[in-house]
């Protein structure tokens, strides 16, 4: 096997679950990757819908602010955003702590900073997905909702939200994959997600090829499996719609 190393260490044992095996650590890393990406996607959804709403509101200042946010975070390297959020959130928290009388450095947990970084990036893209989804709702439906006397909140809950989610699903599926891949950058903050665990395993066993290949395969399994989930969700969400082609 190509993975068998020169010094005769058994690769199967390295990836196993027994003594000296990294199997469990890698799986837990993969779990951490899924968790931080999922929370990141949710934070991104909150930011994205806020930005989309600001641009749809017709309010010029709010629209300009939303547009600037999206333009900036799409134009910056993801790695730079990760560093910036990681350092920045700790500074903010330290400042907030000194307001309540605690003097000293307060670090933000790497998980929180990482999810926030993924969310900030994802939000700048989700804004466009949500905006396009809202614009895809037929005008007549909104008029009908108003004419039967729905107030704005009821219209949002019954008419807008379900359709926006349905139209946004394919775009969100793509952005989920992007979030999953961006989450690997959080490894620079030391969070024990899959990339970081692969790095630690690679350096402590001196088998970088085996570990990075193993990590890569796990990432691939995660993206392929979750893509299927999104496809199924899409099929379910559009089951009542006529379609042009398969």
């Amino acid at each position: 096997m190509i993975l068998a190393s020169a010094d005769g260490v058994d690769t199967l044992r390295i990836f196993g679950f027994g003594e000296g095996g990294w199997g469990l650590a890698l799986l837990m890393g993969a779990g951490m990757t899924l968790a931080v990406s999922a929370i990141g996607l949710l934070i991104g959804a909150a930011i994205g819908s806020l930005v989309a709403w600001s641009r749809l509101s017709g309010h010029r200042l709010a629209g300009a602010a939303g547009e600037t946010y999206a333009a900036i975070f799409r134009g910056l390297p993801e790695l730079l955003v990760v560093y910036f959020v990681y350092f920045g959130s700790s500074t903010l928290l330290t400042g907030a702590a000194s307001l309540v009388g605690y003097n000293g450095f307060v670090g933000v947990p790497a998980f929180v900073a990482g999810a926030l970084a993924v969310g900030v990036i994802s939000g700048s893209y989700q804004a466009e997905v949500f905006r396009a989804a809202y614009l895809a709702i037929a005008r007549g439906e909104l008029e009908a909702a108003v004419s039967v006397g729905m107030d704005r909140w009821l219209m949002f809950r019954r008419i807008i939200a379900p359709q926006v989610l349905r139209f946004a699903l394919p775009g969100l599926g793509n952005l989920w994959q992007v979030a999953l891949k961006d989450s690997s950058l959080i490894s620079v903050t030391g969070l024990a997600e899959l990339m970081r665990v692969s790095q630690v395993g690679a350096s402590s066993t001196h088998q970088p090829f085996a570990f990075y290949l193993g990590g890569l395969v796990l990432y691939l399994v995660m993206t392929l499996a979750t893509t299927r989930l999104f496809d199924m969700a899409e099929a379910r969400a559009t089951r009542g719609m006529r379609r042009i082609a398969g």
Partner: protein
Amino acid sequence: MDWDFIGKTFWRLMAALPLTLEVWLFSVVLGGLIAAGVVWMRVSGSKPLAVLARGYVAIFRGTPLLIQLFLVYYGLASIPAVRHSLFWPILREPFYCGVLALGLCTAGYQSEIFRGALLAVPHGAIEAAKACGMSGLTMFRRIIFPIALRHALPAYSTEMISMVKATALVSLITLWDVMSVALKIRNDTLVTYLPLILAGAIYFTVNYILGAAFLSLERRLSPHLRARPS
């Protein structure tokens, strides 16, 4: 505001910009060449080749670039056979490893853009070209390429911009690009944000110029879609 420090930091970062742009240019060109091969495999009509091409795209688009980069830079170097091979002089240089990993990755994305553009060429145009008696190469040069190019441009410009952003990852394999110089200044001076903000401004400006250039190319290539002057 310490303008002197800001100026010094800015120029130190700018001095690293050529390396960032070199990594970008080489990897984008390499990626384009590989992508052309992958698309050719995909549309060749041969089933095994098409399966290989699909697998390539799934792997490189389905995994993070960072782990691909580390697999090439740290992983390949740990294999004795690679160290004794013809390619070692190339694979031991972080610059070429970075270009190789970024190129392999963008090839996956570029090939899908090319494929989509090829599929957008109307069937009638190809039939007409055949009916006029064009050979395969002439048909590609005169009909398929110009139409596909216009379809590919918007997605291609997005990919070019995301490759500029991706070059920041080479800072993690010991290269002195804009990103790693910013982190070094931050470490040396303990000034937390300024180096990162300036680096961000440089990346943003490069991406802005790139985006504008692609937009003007798009406009120039499609005068027939523009509104008639009134």
